[in-house]
């Protein structure tokens, strides 16, 4: 693969294997498994250390971080099992640093620690700081140990990181482009102080950066020990064999699919309150071509970038991970392919194209900090395209998410900043209902326990429950989104980055669409225009803000739903008796029993 079309950015394919043609032949299978197991164990240990050492709940409770080890060419060997949106971009971070070092004629040295958040050089978006440690063995660069994590505060013009109004890349964070904060073992105090001085909650953020460095150092040390235990060549061969295995597995699944182009398109809310039509109802489209054992994903039909709104998506750091996530989760669903490791091999059969200047491949310095929900919609549309060709491995439309930054200034004139991730829900599957109230697609973080939030911030989570009666009906129904209500205990400000309040998750095969999400601010009069975003809005003491997650789409005709499943939903107060009758054609008596006769009759009438 090469840059054949100047209009498109073609994802650079993996470099050719340098060591040997058939690594599998050069290593005995037991040793390969031992080394593969050791690599996974190192990543687990890195993740474990990072969660335990970090300060902000976004890392220690929500696990919005990733850890990975890469070989000396920047190819990923293994990763943690935290959130895919943090692990997926790690190879791009490392490539970005390699490119910047080449441009600047700078070198990797033993003892360096590199801090990087440049979305135009591989970072996923500015708040996700990468810590990259080059690993040396006997004086030779042998790999990279990397951690990425979402930081609570990054010195933008507004508190926190859920920022929806920025004008360019400079206004959304302190820019850290391949900055050596530790150089050959010596800490760069000037850089350190400068970062601390530019963020509103320096103790927490600097503590989290320290935690990231410690975890990456653990990875580097363990990788070096592995090189000591075996030899460099053996570890390298084992790594290549593992990557080739994953690649082979994915190619074998792709080759079972009929060649052809499969498409899906849809909208995101964008800025529903905006007067500029370009800023709302933003169009996204995915054209997925299967050709033998390759997949090419073309995003050329997506709308152009928004020059002054940060919902543009970094191509390497957000778009590619979104597409790969869906291809892996459907074709190599771990429910069935548990043993296929997630590494560079998974990326090889897939190429992604988006023209420069597209919302899916913006030009510097367009802002990108709020790329999260559009990227998840790209994933949802990739899934929709695949539904045309492998419906048995997919699901109906998935609900998008909302993330909030809550902030204020204490009586001691210090900032407090808290970030909360609210969930969506999954569409129904071919043989099962959708998952309720979960993080979706390329995001798989954890909510912060209510008991943790209220112990640390002047906030109350005054309600956290499932929606009722809003599911995407079908033979299998979509999942229920959550209702999460935050109440301020002091005056403060709130920003919300979200989407999915206008366009409901799509139904499939006769299943109904799900329900869009919503964002409600207590005592505000205008609730007629749906909205999904909020910019640094003052919230007064006692005021409540309700975040409602979408309900996923349904699968198959609701009239085909097993009456006992409908009955169970009625007993569980998820579906009212009226709705059971009206939508599913199932008559449930006051005692909660199925009226079989009336049900059969009603269903026959409806068909």
């Amino acid at each position, binding site marked *: 693969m090469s840059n054949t079309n100047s209009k498109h950015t073609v994802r650079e394919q993996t470099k050719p294997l340098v060591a040997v043609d058939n690594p599998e032949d050069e290593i005995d299978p037991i040793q390969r498994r031992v080394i593969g197991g050791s690599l996974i164990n190192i990543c687990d240990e890195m993740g474990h250390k990072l969660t335990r050492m970090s300060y902000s709940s976004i890392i220690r409770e929500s696990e919005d971080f990733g850890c990975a080890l890469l070989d000396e060419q920047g190819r990923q060997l293994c990763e943690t099992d935290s959130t895919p949106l943090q692990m997926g971009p790690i190879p791009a971070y490392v490539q970005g640093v390699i490119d910047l070092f080449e441009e600047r004629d700078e070198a990797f040295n033993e003892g360096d620690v590199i801090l990087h958040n440049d979305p135009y050089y591989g970072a996923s978006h500015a708040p996700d700081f990468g810590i990259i440690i080059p690993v040396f063995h006997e004086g030779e660069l042998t790999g990279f140990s990397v951690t990425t994590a979402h930081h609570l505060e990054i010195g933008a013009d507004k508190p926190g990181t859920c920022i929806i109004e920025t004008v360019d890349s400079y206004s959304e964070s302190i820019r850290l482009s391949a900055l050596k904060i530790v150089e050959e073992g010596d800490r760069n105090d000037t850089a350190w102080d400068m970062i601390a001085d530019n963020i509103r909650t320096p103790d927490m953020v600097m503590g989290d950066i*320290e935690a990231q460095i410690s975890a990456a150092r653990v990875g580097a040390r363990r990788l070096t020990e592995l090189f000591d235990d075996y030899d460099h060549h053996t570890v390298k061969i084992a790594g290549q064999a593992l990557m080739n295995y994953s690649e082979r597995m994915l190619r074998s699944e792709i080759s079972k699919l009929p060649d052809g182009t499969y498409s899906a398109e849809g909208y995101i809310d964008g800025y529903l309150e905006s007067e500029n039509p370009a800023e709302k109802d933003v169009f996204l489209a995915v054209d997925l071509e299967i050709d033998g054992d390759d997949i090419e994903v073309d995003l050329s039909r997506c709308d152009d970038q928004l020059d002054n709104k940060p919902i543009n998506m970094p191509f390497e750091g957000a778009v590619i991970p979104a597409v790969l996530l869906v291809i892996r989760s459907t074709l190599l*669903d771990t429910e069935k392919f548990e043993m296929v490791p997630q590494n560079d091999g998974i990326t090889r059969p897939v190429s992604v194209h988006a023209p420069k200047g597209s919302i899916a491949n913006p030009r510097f310095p367009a802002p990108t900090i709020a790329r999260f929900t559009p990227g998840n919609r790209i994933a949802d549309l990739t899934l929709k395209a695949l539904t045309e060709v492998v419906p048995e491995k997919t*699901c109906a439309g998935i609900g998008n998410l909302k993330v909030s930054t809550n902030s204020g200034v204490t009586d001691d004139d210090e900032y407090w900043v808290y970030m909360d991730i609210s969930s969506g829900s999954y569409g129904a599957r071919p043989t099962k209902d959708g998952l309720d109230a979960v993080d979706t697609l390329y995001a*798989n973080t954890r909510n912060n326990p209510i008991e943790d939030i209220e112990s640390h911030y002047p906030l109350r989570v005054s309600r956290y429950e499932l929606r009722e009666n809003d599911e995407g009906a079908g033979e299998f129904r979509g999942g229920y989104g959550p209702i999460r209500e935050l109440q301020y205990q002091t005056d403060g400000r709130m920003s919300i980055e979200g989407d999915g309040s206008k366009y409901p998750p799509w139904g499939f095969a006769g299943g109904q669409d799900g329900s869009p999400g919503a964002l409600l601010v207590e005592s505000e009069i205008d609730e007629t225009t749906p909205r999904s975003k909020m910019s640094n809005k003052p919230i007064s003491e006692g005021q409540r803000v309700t975040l409602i997650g979408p309900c996923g789409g349904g699968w198959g005709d609701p009239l085909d739903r097993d009456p006992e499943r409908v009955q169970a939903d009625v007993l569980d107060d998820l579906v009212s008796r009226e709705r059971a009758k009206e939508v599913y054609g199932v008559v449930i008596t006051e005692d909660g029993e199925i009226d079989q006769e009336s049900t059969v009759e009603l269903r026959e009438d409806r068909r």
Partner: protein
Amino acid sequence: MTIIGVDIGGTFTDVFLIDNETETQAIHKVSTTDDPSVGALTGIREICEMADTPPENVDYVLHGTTIATNAVLEHEGVETGMITTENYRDISHIGRHQRPQNYSIQQDIPWQSNPLTKRRHRKTVSERLTPPDGNVKVPLDEDAVVDAARELKDEGVEAIAICFLFSYLNDVHEQRAKEIVEDVYPEAYVTASSEVYSQFREFERFTTTAMNAFIGPNVVEYINRFKKELTSYGITADLHIMQSNGGIATDGMAAEKPVSLLLSGPAAGILGGQWRSELSTPTDEDPNTITLDMGGTSADIGIIDDGEVTEANIRETEIGGYPVMAPMIDIETIGAGGGSIAYVDQGGAFRVGPKSAGANPGPASYGRGGTEPTVTDAHVALGRVRPEFFLGGEMDLDTEAAKDAVSKTLANPLGMEMVDAGLGVLDIVNNSMANAIRSKTIQKGRDPANFTLVTFGGAGPMHAADLIEELNIPRAVIPVNPGVLSAVGLTTTDIQYDYVNTEFSLMSDLDQDGLRDTYDDLANQARTQLRSDGIPRDRISLELTADCRYEGQGYELNLTVGTSGKIDDIETIRQRFHEAHEAEFGHNFPGNPVEVVNERITGYGELPSSEQVSFPEATTPVADHVLAEEVVYFRDDEESVALDTPFFERNDLRAGHSIEGPAIIGEKDSTTVVPPNFTATVLAHGDLELTQTE
């Protein structure tokens, strides 16, 4: 002092008796009954008779049970309700809003697809506490609790979990609600989250509590029945039960907290395996050990790394996919046992397990009506188990029935010879055990080449050689009485009680006297409990620790804080925390405030240990002990071979005896297979060591 260990497995109930004054040891094995307490009592009665011990002379009955585990794994608890805080009905359903698998569309979330409490049985009541002190913001609506209890009763719920937010800070509402529910519905099993796991993180606490309720009634009923039968037999000693962390609890504690018993049975086995591994290790080094306990229904795998039993991380402990916040040994269980049934599936693939023939009808060769071939039948059909050795000749084995079952169900449909089908059954079951061992060793970066495999349980020693060959493990140890090692292991542990005080204070806000008072109070509770167990003062020891963290962190490190009566200086403890943080994470923050989250005391009551009875040295050539030579089938490369194979009775062998394979060593409760190219050596304590012949 006389101690009885009783371990109930899926197929057999094992009993071990030790009297350290008369140096009497006895072992016994009976079939597990539908009501497991019946078989257990039969075993106890018979072993007392065998050892000439009157029941009133028994000082301790120590018990390992799978009753709690099975209730969770088979989802066979009772219909369970929850009373929780209004506006938070779905905490246990939403969980941490995280999908268990990153890369899966078709996955299930156990607490959503198979909830411990259905939404219809989750009732909310008005009440609310707030941090940091657990102050009451909204008072408990007691009428609503009454209504909820009545509704749950009408709905046929048998157990009720009371789960309120912030109850770990203040249990007043949970306790009051519990009183009300017990008043309205006295037959129900009621459990409150602050009693089960008094720590923040509501989803994990509520789920652990719901599980406690879900399995509670079955466990309580079982314990009561067992106690009653012990009493009726004349045993006056209290019943003690092994907990998942390898410590022993009273029956009362077990009934209150059945979630602490989820790995009761397997934990006993690992402790037994650890003991034998230490005995059989030639040096003073703490051995690395893989324990494989293969019984009739399942195989449990445990890892002892540098002499330490690995404990699961409490954030990662789960049973059947549900988070369970209870300390437990790290154990991998797979459905592979002697009773696992082999079959040909719809797609024509050859499969073994996880379905087991259990004790009834049991394998075809038991002649109790079983017709499906099991792993045991494969061994019998291959000539490896001789009826006269099986359970000491107390039970007949029908060799022809085993061969028939293997032929009809497997060999004929697959177009294979009977012998190849039998060997195929063993290949498949060995492979699944090897994979499970890999997941705990290789996948964790541990090289099996540095470990000893201790195999036990009735079926384990038949598979030891094949496993060490497949995994490149240098040696296997088959302990004395391998079939009852779990029961023996029960008697090697100490009685252990844990007491916790939730503190949540900055170290700078604590004063030395207050800290001392807190620990004194905990120490008194521990000592009182241990004395009431009849543990003499000089056999009681206390471990005083504190869970600490930097203010703002979410996870704690556990530190020792001195000894009872002599709490270390607070400044010393603070310094110790900084050092522990440095050691654990490679970094510390000397300027940051340190928070004490919990004070803890673990009280240990040392039981007289099962000193190893000395084992006699060999005085005769091993060849003198060949009982018979028979044809046994083995695998040689890809081919099956029939070899004339000597049979030995293990009781005839003495320390120093060495046997080159092929050979079969039978004993009362197990059979050790020594394939060609393996050597079996009897070690000093009577354990059998298997190595590949150089």
